[in-house]
């Protein structure tokens, strides 16, 4: 084999701490290496051209690029060598940036290490074989998990693009957090008025199948051919018959059920439809509060229902859907602020969350749009907003900025003044982060036109004083302590990963960060992709996002799915396991360990043998290390290839 080695400077990223010319010089002495050079930017157009030219000029039949991580540019360079007529698997990368130049400053040690990594890559390459992909059929249906604004956008875009969409929503209605908002910033237009029609579109679109009050039970398969088991949770109402008339709600005697939609401000009935614009507009019984389900007595809803849809014996149901791609749009949850003992830890009824306040502001909310103190129903005069509750606070394990609280707090301060012209609002803030179009102007308006008093500092304590709450904090600009008599305190509670995000990630085989937010394929260049082919992300499940960003991601994920499905067949990854039939003794161990059922038993002249189903194999290589005969070999990661890397290192 004639190998060409290209050592990248990456500007000064690598060259700064690695002597790339020395690495290239050393590489020329390695077995099989016919050509070696250092280049400024290997991934640039001239850089790639240099590789193509060198392949042609020196008749190279293998290429090593020593540059960044293969997770970044392996695909790029595989296409480059392919352009020059080589098989794309006759290529190896040595990661001398993330694993060398960026983690140490010792130029001698780095150069030495980089040379080692090139030697490993070159000696592995000597054992590489050309590999060819197979084509396989795909199922052009897409599963979207989560019916918030990001999921809705992705669903509608995919459906408009002609795809069949399966939308699965955990609660009884789509709409997510946005449906709970009264107004949106910075335009102060009605949240439900802009989202409502889109929700209706979802309900009416012929290409969309909606499973509300359902969750993902199991995911198997791979890009193009996923099998998804969906659990339809029991609602005790036959939704095929339910017309959403709401008579059951007016008659249900159990009126103390938790009102999840209204964030616990007020109560609802055991059988309920969360809000008038709910999609689907169907009733569900909250089993914890239903007298019939708890004590066996009542059943009034069944008597009054005109369509006879109440079914107290209903059980969870499971359906399996076959899809080719999955979009996770599972959103976020609010941080549990009660860990803040200094804000009362939940003991004071007049300390509420921003989302509770939002429900209070909403005309369709439990107070009919009137701001009332939960304790006594009085209108507040002084309303104090505290920002960064569960954001930018290491002490509660939430060091990140949620990003949208500054904006909604400004919006709520404006709305407070609109609702109660006599009121005075105070906002305790750390920094104002208003980095969107028309955002900073908006916070300015809250201060200047709506006279919200912004106090830069944290609140150290809230405690009841007579009828009101005393809010004590620091004003770091004035260098003083401030005390504000508040009638109502609104906490700008930060976002955290949705409950159950980790469990779903495990089912989807995608990664998540230490806070439970899903990891994108690349922080800059693959914002809606994951490292699992065919699984995409949209919205706040990847990190807190405001509405425009969530919508943008919903559309981005949809465009990725449409792009994937623009082909009728997908090329399989040829880095799959292959069984050498001569060595196979038919023990069947590989079949037992394969997590994908990708190995089947065949009969070969009366002998039991194993055979890999190429399009099902995902290339993990578990069978290879299980096989007692070394018969199963994962292509591109064979025993010989890995051991040649070991040998390249350990011969000194």
């Amino acid at each position, binding site marked *: 084999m004639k190998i060409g080695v290209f050592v990248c400077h990456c500007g000064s990223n690598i060259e700064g701490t690695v002597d790339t010319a020395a690495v290239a010089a050393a590489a020329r002495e390695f077995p099989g290496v016919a050509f070696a050079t250092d280049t400024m930017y290997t991934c640039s157009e001239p850089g790639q051209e240099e590789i193509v030219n060198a392949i042609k000029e020196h008749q190279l039949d293998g290429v090593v690029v020593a540059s960044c991580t293969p997770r970044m540019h392996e695909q790029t360079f595989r296409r480059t060598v392919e352009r020059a007529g080589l098989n794309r698997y006759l290529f190896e990368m040595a990661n001398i940036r993330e694993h060398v130049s960026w983690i140490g400053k010792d130029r001698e040690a780095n150069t030495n*290490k980089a040379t080692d990594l090139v030697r490993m890559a070159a000696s592995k390459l000597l054992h590489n074989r050309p590999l060819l992909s197979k084509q396989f059929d795909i199922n052009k249906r897409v599963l979207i998990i989560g019916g918030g604004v990001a999921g809705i956008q992705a669903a509608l875009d995919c459906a408009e693009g002609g795809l069949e969409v399966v939308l699965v929503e955990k609660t009884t209605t789509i709409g997510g957090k946005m449906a709970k908002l009264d107004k949106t910033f910075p335009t102060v237009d009605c949240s439900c008025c802009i989202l409502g029609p889109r929700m209706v579109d979802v309900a009416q679109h012929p290409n969309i199948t909606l499973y509300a009050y359902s969750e993902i039970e199991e995911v198997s398969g791979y890009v193009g051919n996923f099998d998804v088991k969906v659990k339809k949770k029991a609602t005790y109402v036959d939704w095929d018959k339910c017309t959403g008339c709401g008579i059951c709600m007016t008659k249900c005697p159990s009126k103390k059920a938790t009102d999840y939609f209204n964030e616990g401000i007020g109560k609802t009935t055991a059988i309920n439809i969360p809000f008038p614009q709910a999609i689907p507009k169907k009733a569900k019984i909250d089993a914890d509060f239903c007298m019939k389900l708890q004590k066996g007595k009542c059943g009034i809803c069944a008597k009054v229902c005109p369509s006879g849809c109440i079914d107290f014996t209903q059980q969870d149901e499971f359906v399996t859907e076959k899809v080719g791609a999955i979009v996770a749009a599972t959103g976020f949850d609010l941080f549990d602020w009660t860990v803040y003992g200094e804000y009362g830890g939940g003991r004071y009824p007049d300390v509420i969350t921003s989302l509770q306040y939002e429900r209070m502001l909403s005309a369709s909310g439990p107070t009919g749009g009137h701001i009332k103190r939960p304790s006594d129903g009085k209108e507040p005069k002084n309303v104090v907003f505290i920002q960064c509750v569960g954001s930018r606070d290491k002490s509660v394990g939430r060091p990140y900025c949620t990003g949208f609280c500054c904006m909604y707090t400004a919006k709520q301060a404006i709305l407070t003044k609109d609702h109660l012209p006599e009121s005075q609002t105070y906002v305790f803030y750390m920094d104002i982060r208003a980095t969107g179009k028309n955002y900073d102007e908006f916070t300015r308006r809250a201060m200047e036109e709506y006279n919200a008093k912004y106090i830069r500092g944290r609140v150290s304590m809230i405690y009841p004083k007579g009828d009101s709450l005393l809010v004590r904090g620091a004003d770091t600009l004035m260098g003083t302590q401030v005390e504000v008599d508040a009638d109502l305190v609104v906490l700008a509670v930060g976002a955290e990963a949705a409950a159950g995000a980790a469990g779903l990630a495990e089912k989807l085989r995608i990664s998540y960060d230490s806070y439970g937010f899903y990891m994108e394929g690349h922080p800059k260049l693959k914002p809606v992709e994951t490292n699992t082919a065919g699984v995409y992300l949209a919205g706040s499940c990847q990190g807190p996002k405001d509405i425009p960003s969530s919508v943008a991601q919903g559309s981005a994920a949809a465009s990725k799915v449409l792009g994937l499905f623009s082909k009728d067949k997908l090329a399989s990854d040829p880095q799959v396991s292959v069984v050498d039939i001569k060595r196979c003794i038919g023990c069947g161990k590989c079949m037992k360990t394969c*997590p994908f059922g990708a190995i089947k038993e065949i009969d070969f002249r009366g002998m039991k043998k194993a055979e890999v189903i190429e399009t099902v194999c995902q290339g993990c290589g578990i069978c290879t*290390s299980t096989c007692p005969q070394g018969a199963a070999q994962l292509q591109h990661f064979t025993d010989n290839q890995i051991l040649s890397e070991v040998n390249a290192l350990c011969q000194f």
Partner: protein
Amino acid sequence: MPVLKGKELRIVGFLCNWCSYGGADTAGVGRFNQPTDLRIIRVPCSGRIDPLFIMKTLMNGADGVLVSGCHPRDCHYAEGNFYARRRLEVLHRFLPILGFEPGRFEYTWVSASEGQRWQQVVTRFTEQIHKLGPAPKIAGPEASATLRQMEAVL
């Protein structure tokens, strides 16, 4: 290249592509400084790692071997790291019987987001190997024959 005398020891890492290799990348992107001894071999999954790779690496003169995969339950291939955990644990317990210091081999779990954790793992393991010092090497005129014999036994 020979190891830098008095500065480095030969440490080989086997990392799964999806989590730990990504974690090492994340550490790089975050510029988390690490000792330079470690050389990483990328494998698709920790379940791909044959314990014999580790034996062979140690026999061939490595001073330490570090294996890292996805956290159990987070495997990209659903269950590869469960197999890895069993195999590697058994290997770890066998090492003293085979005449190797058990401190020269370790396995751990690092996710793609845990750059800082990767830095700690590498730093601590490298320190541990430096405390143990260079591993005894199979040397002398019979060395290659001895190695062949040992490999045959395995």
